[in-house]
């Protein structure tokens, strides 16, 4: 019960900051901009509400979303937080458990941002196109949200434990990989954007209609999910 209270407190602490509200504002504007400016014509000729367009939408938005997750981790490892760590660890809580709670809190607060993105996009599709078959977006969400989300969560904790300054380097990494087609191989393509851009040209119409992704890509997503979870687990256990 106490742990649940601590978690609730952590989440409340995270979402009641002006940074969090600003993140919500930025991501909401971005969601609208991507849907209304970049994807209104549909991704590579598919419908603006096709699973492909939704995948591209997620790949673009998720890069800025990952930056938000990294910023949350930077705050966890900030000098201000480090100063009170001594007092926290004098309480009956292990380091692993403390970071587990922090991680879950960040995960839940970030999920709330994701929820806003998804609700906004659904609302947009309904209002503009009268489209409400949201079930078709489940697979894009699994393939394009989970790996990036988990890898940013795991990597943020793991690297933050090693050196908070390196965490800053993840910001350009997510931004550039997500927004610029560097033609990266699957495992380095953290947001899946390069895959969509490069491989779509080689797909035939049947594959496009059925929303079939290549095995290599699916494997890379799976590995990123497992890697994200492992890094999170290891990150919790590393002693500072």
């Amino acid at each position, binding site marked *: 019960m106490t742990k649940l209270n601590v978690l609730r407190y952590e989440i409340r602490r995270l979402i009641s900051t002006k940074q969090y509200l600003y993140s919500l504002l930025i991501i909401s504007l*971005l969601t609208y901009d991507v849907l209304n400016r*970049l994807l209104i014509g549909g991704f590579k000729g598919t419908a603006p509400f096709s699973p492909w367009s939704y995948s591209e939408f997620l790949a673009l938005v998720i890069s800025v979303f990952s930056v938000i997750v990294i*910023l949350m981790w930077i705050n966890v490892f900030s000098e201000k937080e480090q100063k009170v760590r001594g007092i926290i660890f004098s309480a009956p809580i292990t380091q692993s458990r403390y970071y587990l709670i922090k991680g879950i809190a960040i995960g839940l607060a970030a999920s709330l941002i994701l929820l806003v993105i998804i609700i906004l996009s659904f609302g947009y599709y309904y209002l*503009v196109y009268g489209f409400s078959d949201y079930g078709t977006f489940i697979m894009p969400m699994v393939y394009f949200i989970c790996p990036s989300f988990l890898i940013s969560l795991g990597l943020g904790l793991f690297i933050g434990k090693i050196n908070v300054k390196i965490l*800053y380097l993840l910001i350009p990494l997510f931004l550039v990989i997500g927004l610029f087609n560097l033609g990266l191989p699957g495992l380095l393509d953290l947001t899946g954007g390069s895959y969509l851009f490069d491989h779509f040209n080689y797909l035939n119409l049947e594959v496009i209609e059925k929303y079939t992704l290549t095995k290599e890509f699916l494997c890379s997503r799976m590995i990123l999910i497992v890697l994200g979870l492992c890094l999170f687990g290891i990150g919790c256990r590393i002693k500072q």
Partner: protein
Amino acid sequence: MRDRVELIWNEVKLLFKLKMVIVLILLTIIFMIIGLGAVNSSDNYALHNMRQTSRIIALGSARYGALFGSVLFGMMTIILLNRDQRKGSKDLIEANLEYYQLIIVRIISLILLVIGTILLGMLVVFIVQTWIYQTVFELRIYLFSYGVVFFPAILFAILLTSGVYLITDNSDMSLLSLAGLYFLSLTSNNYLLNWVQTHALLYSDFASIRPVTSFILYNRLFWVSISLGVLALGLLFKRRYQRGIYESMLINGQKLFIPLAVVGLLCLALLIYSHEPLINSADSALNIEEPVINERVILTKILPDITFYPDKGEMKAVVNYIFCKELAEERIELITNTGLQITSVKVNGLPTGFEYLKGTDRIQVDLADGEQVELEVTYEGRIKYPHVSTVAGYISENSIYLLEQSHWIFEPLTARDEQVEIIGAVTLPAELTAVPVGEITAIKEEAGQKTWEYMLKTRSLELGFFAAEYTQKIFNVAGIEVQLFTSPRHEAYLFQKDLEHYITGIVEYYTQVIGEYAFLDQPLKIVESSLYKTGGHSTANVITIAEYVFNREFTNSTSMEEWRFYQDIELLAHEIAHQWWGSGVEVTVNTPWSSEGLACYMSNKYMEAEFGEEVSFMLSSYWESSVRLMQGKYYYQHPNQVGLLKKDMQTQIATEKLKTELYSIMPLQLLKAEKILGKEQFLQSLARLYKQNLFQSVSYQEFFAETNLTKEAITLD
């Protein structure tokens, strides 16, 4: 002053003590080096495998450096400005020092760090290029690219994040704002918003870099005012002595120059944005609707006298048009280029008025009564583009490229005589070789300027003009004088791949299969053009081919490289085919029927004859896949939804559809016709169609009549 210099020096020393700064410098330089190979990862596959000279790779290095450097240095700015707050020493410093001064000093020290990073990076790039790429390092090109693309991108990142940090007093919010601006820059189609990398991909290897640099410079001007404005706004809102934003603003605003700078700079940015001088979005090239033509007036003759000023990028023109009509007064329209200012309009030697049609690039002029009327239009200025990536014409120091679509010679929207006579003259610096349409009748040289006189009789009024420092090669094929104009920089590849052999083969093939070249009294001119306009173009008896076809470097002999070579030859064959279908016989457009379909089909037949069926089949399979892709497109299947889109996107979708119809559906239909009739018989039908309609136009109906086929018979399944 000395104290300030010392303060800056101390800050720079402090910066170099940070391990993060070393990492930042290293990462930026690594990406500058990776960027050297950016041309081979471009989205435009035609640009891959170009010979990697300084001009081809320098911009890539600057772009990649800017891509990473802007975020890294933006982050560094926040870390640096946030340092005192993190350490809890801000109030202490503020009590002893004017904090403004410290902020400015930190920004300056960061800028010095950027300059140092760029210089060090340039040294490393120099070593890499000289040792690994083994090409000449052109310092001027690198200085420009790093100085105008790379450095400003990082400068803007520093100024913008500083400004936003001072406004928000929060590092997370500043970083997120930077991410938002970065996103806008990388995804926007508006070149003014591309502050990180700019819109330009690469420079031409032989033509001037001005066609892209004018856009880059204007973009930089816009962002200098924006970023300084945001910084000034930051200084206005900078928190003072733990006060809130409003109270701080009141204190900061007492220094009057700060609010004045905010208003001045942001107004200037607005002014720069709203008075963009290089693009005309109302250009006729973007208007896919057919223009209304006054059929009662017939154009018989054009006498253009043009003087070019390549160093200024300008031209001056006096163009006389001769029209025949009924006695009564008539009003006609001319398509202009809005970058060219009209200085006078005369009808039969008398000055007359004219007016622009609102929201267009067209003017209306009244022609006086009389059966023959002479209209003289005088204008001068710089060519405007329809869009930053749609180059229909430019004038620069060592290259001039003017397609008829640029309307460098205003186009009258009237009926035309069977053969409109063009007698023209162009004057330009003597070192440039001019390639006008038609035949050169005289060349005069005076005071370092050459005047090239030319004449042409044309039905289609295609008046392109091209000039550069070219090497000219003349050879004869099937009684045709072929003049090949290429850059001296690309002679080695021309020789290595024996492109002359393929040009000869193409011309011989068409002569043999379709018929004699229509303009035996005129040379067929093949001109290397810059990559600012990719692909090729055919205008009267001149065809232009983008420079990459003449400037390749195939190193691995992979199937991709082989394929690229085939595509280059196909492009040559396509444009040469337009001399038969387009120039010799005008093909009346009735979508999908147009000269494009015939040129695609003919080039495919040549590829089959030269390289075998497998290659021609592979090339034609591209048409099938593009048709299938178009048919699968959402807005193709749901045309009623197109209304939801903005006008520019509607135009884009309509253009894509039109392109597929002309370049893919029509050649596939011709292949189907060939299958029905048999190759030999079908080609004979085309040859008859060509012969019967030489110097005239041919319609879709005439094609069916000649081949005894029907529209239904060749419609694709």
